[in-house]
């Protein structure tokens, strides 16, 4: 019986011999040393099959390794959408009901970020904010006479700009800052830009049901919902970024974490104040004379 080491060594030799004999052969191996051969073979496969089916096969091969194609190819972006339904649902659940002490990136993402979740969560959030805000304005003004329903479509544009700026610029800033500090202090590796975007995207998920519940016209309920949502999504962010920042100086560490939390709070409070204005604060220039007339008639009763 040959020892396992002998068998392994023989296989590697055979593989390299075969590859030398026919460089165009397609190989599939999980070891890192033959990734160069795999890249060459994948390139050949791409040349041979130039129609749509070729993309699928090359993405299958790339699934086990890091992407080797440039950012101008379609496969590069396909590697960011390499998730199944169950995986997305697990990640969403992980962002909402996570255990304390669990790092979102390490445990739930398992260091394979995707762009599907953040993008579609942001889009859903934009529309849920605009629609819920419109509904709440309508319900607020239901009692007053001469009320004309207004679709307020411009809110969609504003919501889209705000949410997408937050979901892309803030991770860029956080990642840039953390990478700069890490390079200065020479610590262990931080997170890649995509992982940061992914964490921020999934942490925004809790605001979707929150925005729907904000329709109910009770001020105390709205502030309570803000608090709950802030605690949940803020803790995801804090638990993710604390291990990276903790080795830095105390001041920097606390300042970074505090900035992250404050920005998150500003987003939620700003959305609530703009989209869900209470009846007394709604600026209604054209209806103002009627409104005051209605208030006066109410007071005289």
């Amino acid at each position, binding site marked *: 019986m040959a020892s396992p080491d002998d068998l392994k060594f023989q296989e590697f030799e055979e593989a390299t011999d075969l590859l030398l004999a026919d460089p165009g052969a397609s190989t599939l191996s999980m070891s890192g040393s033959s990734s160069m051969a795999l890249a060459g073979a994948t390139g050949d496969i791409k040349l041979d099959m130039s129609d*749509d089916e070729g993309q699928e096969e090359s993405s299958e091969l790339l699934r086990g390794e890091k992407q080797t194609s440039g950012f101008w190819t379609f496969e590069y972006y*396909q590697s960011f959408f390499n998730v*199944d*339904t169950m995986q997305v649902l697990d990640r969403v659940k992980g962002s909402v009901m996570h255990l304390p002490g669990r790092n979102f990136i390490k445990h739930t993402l398992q260091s394979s970020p995707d762009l599907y979740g953040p993008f579609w969560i942001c*889009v859903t959030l934009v*529309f849920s904010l605009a629609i819920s805000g419109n509904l709440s304005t309508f319900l607020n003004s239901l009692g007053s006479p001469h009320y*004309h329903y207004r679709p307020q*479509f411009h809110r969609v544009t504003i919501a889209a700009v705000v949410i997408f700026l937050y979901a892309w610029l803030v991770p860029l800033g956080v990642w840039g800052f953390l990478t700069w500090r890490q390079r200065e202090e020479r610590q262990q590796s931080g997170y890649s830009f995509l992982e940061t975007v992914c964490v921020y995207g999934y942490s925004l998920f809790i605001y979707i049901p929150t925005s729907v519940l904000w329709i109910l016209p009770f001020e105390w309920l709205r502030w309570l919902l803000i608090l709950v949502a802030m605690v949940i999504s803020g803790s995801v962010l804090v638990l993710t970024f604390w291990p990276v920042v903790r080795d830095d100086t105390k001041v920097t560490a606390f300042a970074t974490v505090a900035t992250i939390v404050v920005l998150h709070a500003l987003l939620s409070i700003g959305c609530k104040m703009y989209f869900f204005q209470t009846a007394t604060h709604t600026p209604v220039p054209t209806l103002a004379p009627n409104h005051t007339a209605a208030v006066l008639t109410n007071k005289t009763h």
Partner: protein
Amino acid sequence: MVEVEETSKFMFAGLSDVSISGDIAVEGEINVPVGTPSQDKKYSTLDEPVKDTILRDLKAVGKKFVHVMYPKKSSALLRDWDLWGPLLLCVTLALMLQGGSVDSKEDRGPQFAEVFVIIWFGSVIITLNSKLLGGTISFFQSLCVLGYCIMPLTVAMVVCRLVLLGGSWGFSFIVRLIVVTASFSWSTFASTAFLADCQPPNRKALVVYPVFLFYFVIGWMILTFSPSA
């Protein structure tokens, strides 16, 4: 003479293992520039009257509308895609969503450009999403399917405008709500009947959800349309 033979041998090298003897008429998609006029007459559309050309396209569009109304798993929508139908539907819908209430400049409903951008940009993003997730459908086929499946919502818009002639609130609102909800579910169901087959099975929900969101937003724009006082 020899050069011509050699170049023609190079051009038709792939056909060299097909043995054809004699002068057999070849049918199919091969567009050979040299050929007897009698063979090409069937496929040449240059000499037909303009009415035939227009009617042929209109019939193709009409056939696809019928396929959307009764969505079966036929591949006619996918095979002969065209974008005339989606353009027609999009322009009709955007025009009908005009003339909304203009109380103040910022509280109006969606303008023509906004509806147009939402429909086309939304379709492009959903198509890209489906392709990035590993779908086998081509770009324009997917645009075609998504555009044609807006038809139930356009019908709902026409019905809503008619119902709005009789007042905005109460009974008319309930009727509009039911009509828009029914047509939005019809649209989603019809487009997933065509699109869902082109996806790997464990990612179907990931592709269906954006389609649902897309038609939901269009349905919302239709439902909240209020005519000027």
